[in-house]
């Protein structure tokens, strides 16, 4: 993948790779609190069935994962572990912040022990609001992330520079804020 690292991939090939990457995401379930159960319902239950979207919720370790779903309250005691987990993941890596607690602190906005937002520790690609969000909301977050990956400059992501669009500028996605297409 030397071409990708140097950012010299031809545009049609980038598009092809992006389609392949967006439909084979291995997602690590970083379940922390209440949202973990809704994430389990979205990823592990027959009713919602995330695998039809091309997402595989099986990796037992963050080292095998492309996407991590931080679902639930991140406390100050847990924050170093979240950071370490994120650093263990190989590039390119994506983060979905699920639930109000992970987004901004949620009902614990004035608590002394809760980190107000996981985006203080790791960069977040998609925010899914709700307390907890319904499984459908998480699935929409996954679909929006897939749309985003399709418009991404792969080289920048490989070099660890984060999201750089090849088509247009884009902010972090909030589910319910409309599609980015």
């Amino acid at each position, binding site marked *: 993948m030397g071409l990708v690292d140097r950012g010299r991939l031809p545009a049609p090939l980038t598009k092809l790779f992006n389609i392949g990457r967006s439909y084979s995401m291995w997602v690590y379930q970083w379940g922390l609190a209440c949202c973990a159960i809704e994430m389990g319902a979205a990823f592990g239950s027959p009713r919602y069935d995330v695998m039809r979207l091309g997402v595989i919720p099986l990796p037992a370790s963050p080292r095998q994962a492309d996407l991590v779903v931080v679902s639930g309250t991140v406390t100050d005691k847990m924050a170093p*572990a979240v950071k370490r987990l994120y650093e263990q993941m190989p590039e390119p890596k994506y983060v979905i912040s699920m639930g109000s607690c992970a987004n901004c602190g949620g009902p614990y906005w004035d608590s002394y022990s809760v980190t107000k937002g996981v985006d203080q520790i790791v960069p977040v690609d998609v925010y899914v609001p709700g307390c907890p969000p319904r499984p459908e909301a998480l699935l929409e977050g996954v679909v929006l992330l897939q749309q985003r990956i399709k418009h991404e400059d792969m080289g920048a992501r490989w070099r660890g520079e984060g999201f750089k669009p090849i088509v247009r500028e884009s902010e972090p996605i909030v589910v319910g804020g409309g599609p980015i297409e």
Partner: protein
Amino acid sequence: MTMLSERQQMSYIASQAADARLNVELETEGMTLNIGPQHPATHGTLRIIARLDGEQVVWAEPSAGYMHRGYEKLTEVRTFPQVTALINRIDWLGSFANEVPFILAAEQLMDIEAPPRAQHIRTILFELSRIANVSLFLGDLGVQMGAVTPVFMAFRDREYVLNLIEGATGGRFHPNFDRIGGLKDDLPKGWLDETRQVMKKLRNFCDEIEDLLFGNEIFQSRTRGIGVIPADVARQYGLSGANLRASGVDWDLRRDQSLPLAYDKVDFRVWTHPDGDSWARCWIRLQEVREATKIVDQLIETLPPGPVMTKVPRIIKVPEGEAWVSTENPLGEMGYYVVSKGDLGPFRVKIRSASFNNISITPWVLKGVYVPDIITILASLYFILGDIDR
């Protein structure tokens, strides 16, 4: 102490041997194993530090606090109706059950009582949240031992219960439906018929799980005689709920306490098991789901007419005083000690949650067990991290 079975004796001898081995001449080198804070088997973020001698645990300690969200302090800066929204999230699988003891304590202080219909509906929703909680436990139990099918079945049938809770309260997960003096709303049309059908489905689910999981030879050999807790030890450590009943102690707050809930109007059996091992704890919970479906069935037959809310002032000020109310939640005894100084919010709330006491027995029960059994014992003790750390 009651007569020990052969399995209990063996478990006791193994723990004694593990203690003694540290002193013998040919001492093997110990190893410290860290499980967690994030581990699929810990239902959240519990960390267990275990010192091993070979394959046997000689010392183990849970390290809690990774999910500490400061509920007791937060309740001091919230008003009484706001506290209900907060304490929903303590035991996140049985949310409605968390609200009830707090609301009852506040009602006790205000010296009011909910109308009979509200008490009935409260009890129905209480039992529904118990079913939602424990059915996920039954599914999750298989995952801890390498069987993936039960969790799919649990999620499949749990969705029906969540639909019922959502239909009645509007909230799928955290209803926040209980009010001081009654309930927010009455039940919607057609809800009772749907409930009857869902309860049938849940009883079928219990039969399926009993055949598939409890009848499985591997499951039995991994849980029978493992993690034995005798009755007196269980009492000393303050276990409650199914963990205590599995040790043969006949103790259930639903039956033993007279609270303004509708439990005195229904006929149900409190199951106990003499063994006290992992299998007994799982089996008791399975029976509890069955009993809960029967309680719901009886309650919807005898649902009285009338209002669901008494007259309460628009701005709720709770008079000065102290109240302690505890109920039999899905995980065990959960209680709130509410101190009010006559303000809009409570002055101090002490939360007694079941899992904190249930998990405090792990240093005792994990001593002498083998490493793979740590997971099954923890799974059978059944704790929820929000309930431990609060």
